[in-house]
């Protein structure tokens, strides 16, 4: 075979274009990327947005600040280990922290569904207040709307975080370079499987809890130990570790090689994934970060992670390489290799 030629092959199924938004567009995989690239960027394009980082860095009146926004639509609203409020605060604090900035302020917008119980709302508010207080980040402005029954899955929350840039600490998705070490701060798969356990039709009993956490103290520890040698920081939320690494590999135009044997997956998470036929690499996390660090400071960075309660199980899971740029390759436990690709949309439970 001399090369792939597009022949006029009559195939069983015609190519289908989708005219509507599908759930897969929100999964953090290829469909999400295409949605952004093809529908939003052409109209909003500007150099800052084009960076496609977790947040944006802007200069106002001589001060460099980070702005990051995120919307939380999780269902069910309450799940083992937390609720939508915890995600809304931690998630945005983490996005600001992944840019290397110290979170300073938060805003929050609420869409409440008619009929939402006040008891539930109170629990969410208390959780948010506690999380913000513990982080030392005040909620400075917000908004509330109410929509008719049936229109908001109970509650949607948008939060925006604002932080101050540290000029000597500017990790970014495009900064990974060959020989950098890929560090993972904690085991993967907890949040996504905690949610899955509560989903009707797929439910199972377990003690898996969401790992939702404010990671900025962990980032501060990394900055202390390794400074500018921390090239990339990313919290692998929707789409899981695989999606995060793929995005970085593409943004930095590098390849990555991971060692399957080093990937930390808690036993019960692994079991739940086996049951449903899901791959932990694509399951969402809310208390994990990936740090890609220059080799000279990698050990120091790993030690700093391990010294912190949120990073006590941190491991090195692989390296950045110059080969196969844009691809994340996994060396399997039996010594083979495979690509860890971006999924098109949501990962679906399977029977085969």
């Amino acid at each position: 075979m001399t090369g792939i030629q597009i022949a006029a092959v009559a195939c069983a199924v015609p190519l289908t274009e989708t005219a509507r938004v599908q759930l897969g567009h929100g999964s953090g995989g290829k469909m999400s990327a295409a949605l952004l690239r093809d529908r939003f960027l052409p109209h909003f394009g500007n150099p800052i947005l084009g960076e496609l980082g977790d947040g944006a860095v802007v200069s106002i009146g001589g001060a460099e600040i980070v702005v990051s926004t995120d919307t939380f639509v999780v269902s069910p609203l309450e799940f083992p280990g937390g609720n939508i409020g915890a995600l809304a605060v931690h998630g945005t604090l983490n996005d600001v922290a992944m840019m290397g900035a110290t979170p300073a302020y938060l805003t929050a917008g609420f869409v409440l569904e008619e009929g939402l119980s006040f008891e539930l709302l109170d629990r969410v508010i208390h959780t948010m207040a506690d999380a913000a207080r513990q982080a030392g980040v005040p909620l400075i402005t917000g908004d509330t709307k109410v929509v008719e029954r049936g229109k908001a899955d109970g509650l949607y929350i948008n939060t925006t975080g604002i932080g101050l840039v540290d000029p000597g600490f500017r990790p970014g998705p495009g900064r990974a370079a060959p020989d950098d070490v890929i560090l993972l701060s904690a085991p993967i798969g907890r949040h996504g499987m905690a949610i899955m356990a509560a989903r009707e039709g797929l439910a199972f009993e377990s003690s898996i809890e969401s790992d939702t956490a404010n990671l900025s103290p962990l980032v501060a520890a990394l900055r202390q130990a390794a400074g500018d040698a921390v090239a990339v920081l990313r919290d692998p939320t929707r789409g899981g570790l695989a999606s995060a690494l793929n995005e970085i590999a593409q943004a930095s135009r590098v390849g990555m090689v991971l060692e399957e044997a080093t990937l930390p997956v808690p036993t019960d998470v692994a079991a739940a994934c086996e049951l449903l036929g899901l791959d932990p690499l694509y399951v969402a996390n809310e208390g994990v970060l990936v740090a890609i660090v220059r080799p000279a400071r990698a050990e120091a960075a790993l030690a700093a992670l391990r010294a912190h309660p949120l990073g006590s199980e941190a491991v090195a899971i692989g390296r950045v390489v110059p080969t196969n740029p844009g691809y994340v390759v996994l060396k399997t436990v039996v010594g083979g290799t495979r690509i860890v690709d971006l999924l098109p949309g949501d990962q679906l439970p399977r029977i085969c």
Partner: protein
Amino acid sequence: MKYLSEYRDGTVAQGLIARIKQTATRPWTLMEVCGGQTHTIVRQGLDELLGDAIEMIHGPGCPVCVTPLEQIDKALALAARPDVIFTSFGDMLRVPGSECDLLQVRARGGNIRVVYSPLDALELAIRTPDKQVVFFAVGFETTAPANAMAVWRARQLGVSNFSVLVSHVTVPPAMVAILDAPDNRVQGFLAAGHVCSVMGWTEYEPIAARYHVPIVVTGFEPLDILEGMLLAVRQLEEGRHEVENQYARSVRREGTPPAQDLIRKVFRLTDRQWRGIGAIPKSGLTLREEYADFDAELRFGLESLTVEEPAECRAGDVLRGNLKPPQCPAFGTRCTPEHPLGAPMVSSEGACAAYYNYARFRSPAAHEG
């Protein structure tokens, strides 16, 4: 996990691979029928590690991939009805029908739910008496006991708003069809371990005898597959052609008789169209007369819906093992998991998807047979 993780031991795997290479005095061609086995092979990179010793041809072991276009279109029609909650295993949601797939029907307002078990679908029917709940009963013999039980239980509990859209296929006729093909290159089979957990392996004995092919009942973990390959290669080297059981911890010769009994009670054999392969006589299961009132096709008047299977697509060649996915002209360009041209690229168990997701940049030349 017990009885799972130990069969992923890297050191033992390396040893087995070396053993296989040592045992094979010439290259042999084997077929694994089951999609789950294909998944392990490509996902762990086993085929790459075996080099020239064994060529694995990936068989039509993905019930999702071989579900006829007709059945998908019937599923789409049902899912679009406002009075229906359409339930299915996750794998089926992205398989393209003539015009779209279940995910797109959901985007247009169809009530579609993924379930883990057919009993969950039945429970849903009991909980929502004002809706019709249809379950897409797809699968090989492994899933037939579950689907049979859902129907039997619905009758026992008097659940009238539950029905099934059946698209079951059975393995032995497909193996025979492959062996009968004039261009067949398969010299030995890894039989599907969980199909055999249910059905036992008596149906494979006449096949091994008649076609002189070793058939090794094999599990799904890397060590299972490697051991299955080793046993098959040993047979070939020694000129034997028997049915052997690698998956002894989960398979007995007689299978699980109570499951076979209920399958026989609820279903009967019928001719089936295998997408990409064509019609294989007596290769499918359909509901018996006594349970016909649970047949969604009859309940909703879909039995006369026929769909022209379009001109032969390369999916057929892939499913029959004549073409490696990377050799298909459309692979990775016009045909990708986001824009699949055929079912083997959609289902995560399909050979095309497995190659695309796990082995895409390996040189196509490495796969030339």
